[in-house]
């Protein structure tokens, strides 16, 4: 019943859990604030509606109340901020890319994703590199770092199941990392308006077990035309 659900769809990467946890913490805190304020509002509207003979409480305010509700709000948001900062640094910080991350180049353009693999020699710009269009194959439990390069406009590399999103900006080489934890098929969808084909800029992400991934790798050959 996703139309009323506040639950997130299942995550399938290492930091999905961290991100989802922040979400649920914020959900609970804002949920409490929501209930307190809205119930308070409705209660006041009912309790203090005009009735014959009613007199108002003539007051201009209360400094103590101001201090209390300001402090609570400020402390709460500061805590939420601190919680987020650590996770942000681990995901997108300067030294966040794991040392063992496997690199894949992503050449992005209107309206397709071209994934360049370094091939068996593990190095780019060698004859055994190969490219797959709109298909990203990955081994499970292996950190991946994508190197995003756009040829034309800004696109956004977005795999909701992995909770990863990173804009690809022409003129910049941007790296983003993630580590899938569950085998299966997922979708990658461009998340920045990039022209009339933006809606169909989709790629399929297949996470294999290690054996299957090796088998798939072996099937790719430098001489096979990009598909």
């Amino acid at each position: 019943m996703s139309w009323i659900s506040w639950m997130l769809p299942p995550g399938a990467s290492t930091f999905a859990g961290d991100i989802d946890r922040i979400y649920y913490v914020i959900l609970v805190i804002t949920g409490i604030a929501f209930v307190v304020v809205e119930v308070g509002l409705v209660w006041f509207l009912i309790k203090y509606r005009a009735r014959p003979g009613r007199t108002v409480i003539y007051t201009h305010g209360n400094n103590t109340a101001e201090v209390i509700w300001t402090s609570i709000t400020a402390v709460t948001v500061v805590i939420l901020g601190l919680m987020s900062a650590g996770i942000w640094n681990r995901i997108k910080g300067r030294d966040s890319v794991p040392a063992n991350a496997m690199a894949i180049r992503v050449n992005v353009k209107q309206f397709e994703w071209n994934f360049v693999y370094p091939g068996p020699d593990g190095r780019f710009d060698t004859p055994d590199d190969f490219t797959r269009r709109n298909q990203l194959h990955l081994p499970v439990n292996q950190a991946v770092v994508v190197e995003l390069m756009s040829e034309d406009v800004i696109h956004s590399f977005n795999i909701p199941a992995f909770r990863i999103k990173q804009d690809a900006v022409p003129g910049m080489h941007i790296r983003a990392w993630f580590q899938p934890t569950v085998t299966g098929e997922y979708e990658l969808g461009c998340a920045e308006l990039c022209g009339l084909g933006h809606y169909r800029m989709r790629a399929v992400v297949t996470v294999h077990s290690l054996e299957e991934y090796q088998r798939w790798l072996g099937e790719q050959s430098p001489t096979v035309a990009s598909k």
Partner: protein
Amino acid sequence: MATIAPPVEPAVHALVDDRTFLRKYIFSTDHKIIGIQFLLMSLIFLLIGGILAMMMRWQLGFPGRPMPGGGLLPETMASGAVILPEFYASLVTMHGTFMVFFAIMPLLVGVFGNYLIPLKIGAPDMAFPRLNMASFWLAVPAGLLMIAGFFVEGGHAAAGWTGYAPLSANPEYTGVSAGQQLWCLSLIILGLSSILGAVNYISTVINLRAPGMTWFRMPLSIWSLFITAILVLLAMPILSGALIMLLFDQSLGTHFFLPADGGQPILWQHLFWFFGHPEVYILILPAMGMVSDIISNGARKPIFGYHSMVFAIMSIGFLGWVVWGHHMFQSGMNPTLGTTFMVSTMLISVPSAIKVFNWLGTLWGGSIKFTVPMLHACAFVAMFVIGGLSGVFMASPPLDMYIHDTYFIVAHLHYVLFGGSLFAIFGAITFWYPKMFGRMMSPRLGKLHFFLTFVFYNLVFFPMHQLGLQGHMRRIYDPSTYEFMKPLAGLNRFITISAFLLFASQLLFLVNFIGSWFRGRKAEPNPWDDTGLEWTTPSPPPHGNWAVTPRVYHPPYEFGSGRTAEDFLPQDRKLDTPPAPARAPASR
């Protein structure tokens, strides 16, 4: 060498009005007429923006199905009455553009800034009435240019209301050439109109307050319009600069935002959002101010925490300048910068929270009258809270990774701009209509419009939170392209149908607005028993507003003090008795 004004006899102004029809109603320098001109213009653009949204919603609810009336559209926009992807991108762009720049902003700033400022501070008009007229008559061609974009070859701008480069900078990427240039040009002209307006508002509030109208006796509507005008003054020029650079990239071969030769696409985002974030506070602060006026009036007691409210308005205005990067967390900007923007963004929720608590405090212990303006003002509080709370999610950069560019953002922005600003606007129009037109709007139609709008509005926008949480991206012409969005088709259809009903409900407002102009009950000078200065002059006020300049003796919002026979004390009512002690623990 400022001279302090000695107490003087109130100036007696001759109120002879011998202007021609043209000078009185078309090329008028009277702030009240200009305010009404902005009102009529903005309501037309609100309608246009709504129609564009209905077309978007048709495509999202019934992707690829022929749209009723679609046959009227040219082949460049719809094929066989089915909306084309390129036209969808324009729809998305132009809905946002018209709503932000030609509906909400002029409704709040052009209409109520113009109408209320002189009246509520006791001035005969703005400081620069002819400049005021220029402001309006610059906005008109800006609007016409923006409409013209639909009729040029290549169609209208299609890079989103945010116009990100390089998509917006090179016609090859969208197929749109003249349309995008018209978009830039129109907004540059509108920017000039707004800046000149801001000069007027700021000068007027500083220099033209009537004797006794000290800064801390100004109503919150004026405080918020004043701070908003400062934001307009300082933010719009940034946009103008950015648009000029974009226009040059499009037409002169410059490379500000195009990466070949060293241009930087992210520079556009920095410039746009440095303007854009203050802009969204421009779109909410006047609404907050007017809601304060209306809630205090409706609850029949002073606003709770007036000084805190002023402080909150100033804080929002100030902090609004240092949060812009939260629109750019995923942009490729240095992540450390992202952390600093997270801090400022979390902090800016504090003054908004202060305001919400103070509105609740105002209702507490009141004697609440559910007039139509009061209904809208209370709905504002309820909806703004939702919009504000949803903002907390996106203030966290890692969580924003998931939420960015999804419908969760669309839900957030509509809760603050529609649930917030537009409800406040409906309430404010109803509240000040009698002063503007000398007639009351129909309460029955008003209440019916309110309830239907409230219900359908929530049915449209609340489920968008869910869409976003399931990963539904923004600006997607056909969601069924993605497997993970296919299950959301039913929800999209539900939203679409609710949207049609929401749009249809606005007919009630239209009928009420136009009908009351001719057939509404004639309004007395102070139909809401309010304390503001505008209610001490006839409805509508004459040119020059008062025969005798008002003299102010009291703070605003003196309801329920017991010092008068009625339950309110107009700001200009001279009393011989000193203030009575408050009946509950109170502090200013």
